[in-house]
């Protein structure tokens, strides 16, 4: 979109008028509908194929790697004693972590009345869903005998055995699959009014029919909105403890074990902070591309990106704090095994991975202290990639460096992934990006109805004379009093 100057952007807080508008460029209801629906209705742009076809190729590679794994067995991977958990678990935790930003944006920021979330929540929720899909693949395929993967579920089987519900791995099965289900429900509920918008705009019969089916006959009735808004609020309230519980449970897969380097009480909050950190980085990576590609700079504004950069800075420091506390506790515990595990982590054979992790997660995001960096697209993009890499290495460090030197020096080993490990990891990005490409092509990537509610014109008391309370400059027009 031409004519987008920095001065035109809304990153600046105006202390007299209250908050700057969230949506720029004189958008009204119709122009928002147009801006979001346009990409779905126009001919498929060449650029989309340039993203989609490579993603599809990577997805095919994912299929081949998994197919070969099923045929040949876990032996094609680099896992061996004592490193029984390799890339599969690293990738699982990595993808689940990415999948946390969407629900954080849609649920927690909703409860905190952070209205800037409306421009990015749809795409972030979609991203969450696809990340959870990628994550769920790994526990499914890593079990070795995949044809009995249903033993993870409490269903009757031929041995009359039942799963052990005291195991965090069992909690994980429930936490992640329920998280995926609830995220899907949340996302779909948000989509229904927007699908109705696309249905009403569709000219051709088939899109009208398909979007119409999924819109369920939504007709914008205020009597419906009443229940709808209540359902949305309740879902947000339910998803908030859920999202915090999911990565806590994932962390207990490690923390409940007896292994030095894993057996720490800081793991649940540390994992949750890291998950939000990595998720927001992925949202920035995707949004920087999407807003440019679809000309949505005035809906997904610099202010949105800057806010996300601030969250990355905050959670990055929380992660850094957790790294430091782990060392403190290792020293303070007086446990030689614990101390050895951490010294070995920093100076041992996996020191290279540890320092990649610390550099990407703790040092590099400090650039976001500077406003110039938070509002620069190239800087945002590059740092978001660094954070993604750093967070993958965090999980690699936790898994590999803790396992490779256990209590018995005779069994020490060095874990090296095979090409199949790498192909599976890269292939999972194929699944993720294929799904995301399909999403931006066929579904509205911005929550149309929700963005409309943050326009001043959506307020039934807009334009009425109002009293701005002295000393409360941050009030927006919902907070201001009508006289």
């Amino acid at each position: 979109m031409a004519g987008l100057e920095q001065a035109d952007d809304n990153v600046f807080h105006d202390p007299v008028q209250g908050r700057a508008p969230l949506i720029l460029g004189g958008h009204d209801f119709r122009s928002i509908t147009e801006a979001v629906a346009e990409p779905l209705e126009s001919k498929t742009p060449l650029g989309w194929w340039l993203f989609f076809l490579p993603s599809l190729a990577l997805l095919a590679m994912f299929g081949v790697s998994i197919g070969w794994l099923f045929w040949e067995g876990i032996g094609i991977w680099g896992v061996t004693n004592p490193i029984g958990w390799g890339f599969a678990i690293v990738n699982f935790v990595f993808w689940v972590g990415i999948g946390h930003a969407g629900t954080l944006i849609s649920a927690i920021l909703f409860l905190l009345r952070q209205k800037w979330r409306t421009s990015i929540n749809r795409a972030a929720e979609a991203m969450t869903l696809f990340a959870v899909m990628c994550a769920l693949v790994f526990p499914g395929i890593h079990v070795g005998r995949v044809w009995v993967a249903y033993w993870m579920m409490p269903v009757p089987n031929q041995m009359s055995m039942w799963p052990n519900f005291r195991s965090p791995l069992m909690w994980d099965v429930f936490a992640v699959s329920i998280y995926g289900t609830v995220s899907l429900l949340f996302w779909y509920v948000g989509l229904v009014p927007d699908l109705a918008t696309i249905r009403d705009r569709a000219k051709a019969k088939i899109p009208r029919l398909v979007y119409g089916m999924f819109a369920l006959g939504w007709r914008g009735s205020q009597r419906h909105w009443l229940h709808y808004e209540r359902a949305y609020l309740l879902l947000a309230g339910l998803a908030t403890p859920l999202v915090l519980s999911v990565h806590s449970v994932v962390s207990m897969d490690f923390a409940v074990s007896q292994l030095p380097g894993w057996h720490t009480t800081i793991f649940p909050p540390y994992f949750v902070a890291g998950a939000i950190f990595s998720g927001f980085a992925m949202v920035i990576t995707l949004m920087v591309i999407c807003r440019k590609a679809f000309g949505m700079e005035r809906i997904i504004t610099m202010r949105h990106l800057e806010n996300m950069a601030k969250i990355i800075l905050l959670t990055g420091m929380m992660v850094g704090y957790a790294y430091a506390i782990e060392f403190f506790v290792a020293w303070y515990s007086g446990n030689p095994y614990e101390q050895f595990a951490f010294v070995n982590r920093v100076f041992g054979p996996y020191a290279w991975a540890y320092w990649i992790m610390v550099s990407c997660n703790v040092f590099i995001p400090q650039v976001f202290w500077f406003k110039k960096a938070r509002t620069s697209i190239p800087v945002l993009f590059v740092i978001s990639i660094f954070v993604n890499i750093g967070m993958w290495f965090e999980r690699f460090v936790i898994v590999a460096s803790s396992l490779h030197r256990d209590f018995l020096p005779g069994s020490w080993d060095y874990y090296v992934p095979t090409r199949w490990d790498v192909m599976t990891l890269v292939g999972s990005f194929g699944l993720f990006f294929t799904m995301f490409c399909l999403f931006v092509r066929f579904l509205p990537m911005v929550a149309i109805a929700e963005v409309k509610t943050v326009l001043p014109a959506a307020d039934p008391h807009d334009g009425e004379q109002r009293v701005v309370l002295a000393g409360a400059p941050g009030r927006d027009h919902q907070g201001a009093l009508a006289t």
Partner: protein
Amino acid sequence: MRNPLSFLVPELPEGREHYGALGRFADARSLYRACERVRDAGYTKWDAHTPFPVHGLERAMGLRSSPLPFVVLATGLGGAATGMLLQWWVHTQAYPLNFSGKPTFSWPAFVPVTFELGVLGAALGAVFGMFALNKLPMLHHPLFTSERFERASDDGLFISIESWDPKFDAQGTTAFLSEIGALEVELIAAS
């Protein structure tokens, strides 16, 4: 035989010429005022249609608050109870095993799964309860016959008054909608 998919279309009273009257309003503010007027005029079978939820409009329309929280409470507690019962049954009835001499019903270890299933039950209750209260899916509706009504999902703000409202009459109600500020008014055929 009754069509099993008949729930997808609304059941309307027989023998009506019109579904009702539809008026379009300029902005959220005039819609809000108009809703107050319709409410105060004593209409009961009517609705507002907006592309986004207009805050406070339920008060202007005189709607009661949603009973959904009770549904969600019930399904949430049901989910949690199912979770705890399942684990109790597995560990004490179906497959009791001795883990380090711990009691077979070691409930603190069962809290995470109980919590997760409680959230699942509540979320399913919130979503499907909301659709049930809204009688959705309903793939056809007489309002969809109006071309103008397509704007209800774009930028159009509407009030519809149904013909079986005791106060409805085709002439008077359309005149009333114009009087309270509707820019365009039309009668919707019953179909």
